[in-house]
């Protein structure tokens, strides 16, 4: 069996064990279905409400994707400008460190107040929590360029009009920082759904977070779990797609852990 098949099999087996444990818990404790519905009930509810769950899932997915694009884009631009302008770095970096300590979730009510119940406040929420890890990871990478590469670049561009620093950034500093950026992007992929759902909880009229609150209020616990299941599946899919893409794009980055 190939490595890929082995890891898929392992994933399926773990999933099956998890479902079995869930069912065993329901049978073993005799817990009421409105506290913890069994997997069969949740699946049934998912199929019965497929159209409803799908509609809300599409909105949450849109919020996550837009949040990822905005947050990662802004974080990358910010990291590059911080590395390029020492003055900006001196003023902005301490500010960023302090801002990072503010719990972004606490801003959710304010964002909803300012940006309304629609898409914008959720995208903003997701962008905000993505922005910091992407900025710090990428900036860290940009600061750790092998000095020998830069020396070499300097001898190659010596006597050229002005372009040396830009060329070194574009051809050496940025590519060299991509593995560090990739770590930031993985974190971003993992936290983006949190941002979107928290935004939905605070105030919204659509999305999986909204659907979960709504179902909870009406004691539709099976629907709540169905929405939760879809959200988890979405988050895992987003994370592994980005992880896969980053591995494909950075084949030169050695993985020093033994093959898993």
């Amino acid at each position, binding site marked *: 069996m190939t490595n890929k098949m082995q890891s898929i099999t392992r994933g399926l087996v773990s999933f099956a064990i998890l479902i079995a444990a869930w069912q065993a818990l329901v049978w073993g404790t005799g817990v009421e279905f409105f506290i913890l519905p069994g997997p069969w009930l949740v699946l049934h509810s998912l199929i019965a409400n497929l159209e409803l769950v799908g509609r809300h899932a599409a909105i949450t997915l849109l919020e996550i994707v837009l949040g990822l694009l905005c947050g990662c884009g802004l974080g990358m631009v910010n990291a590059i400008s911080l590395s390029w302008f020492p003055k900006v770095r001196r003023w902005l970096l301490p500010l960023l460190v302090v801002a990072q300590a503010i719990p972004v979730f606490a801003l959710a009510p304010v964002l909803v107040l300012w940006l309304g119940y629609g898409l914008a406040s959720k995208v903003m929420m997701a962008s905000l929590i993505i922005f910091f890890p992407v900025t710090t990871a990428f900036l860290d990478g940009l600061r750790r360029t092998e000095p020998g590469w830069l020396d070499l670049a300097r001898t190659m*561009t*010596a*006597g*050229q009009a002005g372009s040396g620093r830009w*060329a*070194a950034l574009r051809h050496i500093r940025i590519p*060299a920082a*991509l593995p560090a950026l990739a770590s930031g992007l993985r974190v971003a992929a993992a936290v983006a759904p949190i941002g979107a759902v928290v935004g939905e909880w605070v105030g919204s009229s659509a999305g999986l977070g909204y659907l979960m609150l709504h179902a909870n209020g009406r004691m539709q616990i099976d629907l709540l779990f169905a929405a939760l299941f879809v959200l988890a599946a979405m988050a895992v899919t987003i994370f592994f797609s980005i992880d896969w893409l980053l591995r494909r794009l950075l084949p*030169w980055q050695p993985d020093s852990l033994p093959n898993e």
Partner: protein
Amino acid sequence: MPGSEFVMDTEVPVGVALRGGTLAFGDKVIFESLDLDIPAGRTTCLLGPSGVGKSSLLRMIAGISPEAAANRLVSSDGGAIEGRIAYMDQRDLLLPWLSVLDNVSLGARLRGAAPDRQRAQALLAKVGLAGESKSLPAALSGGMRQRAALARTLMEDRAIVLMDEPFSSLDALTRLRLQDLAAGLLAGRTVLLVTHDPLEALRLGHRILVMRGSPARIASVLEPDGLPPRPADDPNLHGLAAAILAELAG
């Protein structure tokens, strides 16, 4: 001699002279009022115990030592030295995300020019890496990587080549082979090669300078008989090497 058709494609040999060179890191004076002549079209080897400041001197001439801005460097033809230097380090400094071919043509890429891929291919063939142009550096052995670095240095086609212990991280056999290869490919250029290996200096140098002391100075100048690359089994070289070692130790 392999590579003779690459000798001096565009430039006339040019010598470099340093007058009153001074370098200090904080209070520690590495050298002061140092005079150094690197004659045009010849290989000058700079030998010295480790820590004496020979790499710092080379980096100063290469223009990549931030501590040494005010030193006087003059070229034998009166032209600017900036932009006429190719630099090769002890480490290969290959960019891990670029193929060997793209690494060799890195200079053009950085200058925003179109790389001459044919010339890069031809140089790779000269250093014995014709089949590896698409490989990533990680796929190459240490000796192959250093050969790629040599091809990159030659690709720059500069009149002056500065080499900082370029072969010191290689095993003995690979080192001997690369010394021969480099001597052939660099013939006719002005080369300053820093090394701590007397035998390497004696094989490759038209002229050998021994740097010693603190602050460092050029303690002796030697011009061995014959032309480089001198054979490694030449008994005269071994005698001279022993004498140089004694001088370095003393």
